[in-house]
């Protein structure tokens, strides 16, 4: 620029900094919000997938329990990830009249329910992520326990 500008150097700096600050702030807020939304969607998607896997294991154990009859041993295991998208989570088997699975994460706080069909009765149980096993108890009920099949 020539030396015939109308504003002073200080004013130019101030305006420039202000515009830059507004622009940067807007970018960070939008970017942060976008990442946060996507992380929440990722956690929800992973919980749904893990819930379906656990449900399929329960249904498989149920089929085996029905085929085996009384006084049988059925123990079906799987290893779940310890965290989903960096968040810890819990898996709960809700033993109501129509039982279902409830998966809940800690950060972000999300909760999803996964239904399954069963013939054998189920026992209420909770566990964290990691290796788990669907066991047929001595009372001929299916339950979720941490550990490996035995």
């Amino acid at each position, binding site marked *: 620029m020539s*030396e015939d500008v109308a504003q002073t150097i200080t004013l130019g700096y101030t305006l420039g900094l202000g515009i830059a600050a507004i622009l*940067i702030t807007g970018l960070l807020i939008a970017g942060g919000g976008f*990442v946060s939304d996507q992380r929440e969607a990722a956690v929800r*998607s992973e919980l749904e*997938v893990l819930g379906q*896997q656990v449900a399929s294991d329960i249904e498989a154990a149920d089929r085996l329990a029905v*085929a085996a009859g009384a006084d049988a*041993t059925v123990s079906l295991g799987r290893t779940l990830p310890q965290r989903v998208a960096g968040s810890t989570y819990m898996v709960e088997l809700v033993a109501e009249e129509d039982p279902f699975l409830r998966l809940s994460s800690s950060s972000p706080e999300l909760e999803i329910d996964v239904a399954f069909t069963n013939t054998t009765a189920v026992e209420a149980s909770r566990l964290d992520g990691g290796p788990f096993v669907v066991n047929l108890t001595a009372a001929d009920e299916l339950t979720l326990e941490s550990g490996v099949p035995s």
Partner: protein
Amino acid sequence: MADLREGVRGDICTGLDCHNTRGQLLIVTGFALAIAFVGLALILNSVIYTENIATRAETTTSEPVSLTQSVERGTEDLVDYINDHNTSEEGDYSAVKENLTRAFENLSAITARHHLNSGQVSALKLDGQMEATWVTQTNRERNFTNNDGDATWSPVSTNADGARQFRLFVNDTTTLDGLTGNPFTVTLNDSANDRWTLQVGSTEVEMTDANGNNVTCGGIDTLAEFWVNVSAGTVAGTECSGLALAPELGPVQGVKFENGANIEGSYRLLVNKSEGDVGSVGDYGTDTSGPYTQAALWGTVIDLDFERKNLVYRTRIRIIPGDIDE
């Protein structure tokens, strides 16, 4: 300072040669956003991986079920074969049990080897063999009286717990009496004293089930000899739909023959009772000229154990071949 424009008065450079542009704020912001998006990419990558894992068929539970079914079929065949080919002496259950034990060991070894090839472990164990008795007459030139010649007698007089594989062969149809006369009659009863009756007449065969319903099957009046196979539901090789034991009839407890002099041929019946407890004194002889009994097996119990990665399955199987006749 964070200049945004080229060639600001006071810089050491002038004109279009100035390369002294600085944008620290923008570049720092760019770094921050880049790091955030990289983190997002990692999160999305884990989601893609999880969903990919979900599409794999990992939960298969068909192996233990198919193992159970194959062991059931194999053991049923073993029991039937051993029963049909038993040549042991009267009352000798040790021989038939030993035969089944040895044959089952082979079945167990083959099964275990087959599953080991797939990284699975299976173990089978015989746990109890149920004694039974063949009630039979192989001399086709003889009537169906007992060893003492009584026409009305009970081949199974005590409380049995089932009967199966009942069939009889009429060697000479001229010995048969008509249904309105005194035909040969077999009566089976359960614990509630419900009865199933079979009458073999000269022109037709009639069954009366536990509810009193009659079914008649003919086509035998021109035959010189014929089979009546209750288990298979056939008369002279032709299907006779009412021949099977009625579902309302529980496990057979007693078997009675009447008018045994009005029929000639052979018969065979497997009864769920030990040999010494079947019939009364004088009913059976010790040779094959008349009716006699022979040791057999009713069934067995097997402990099945199946293990593979992430699955343990144990159950107890009760094997009773052809138990629909019970």
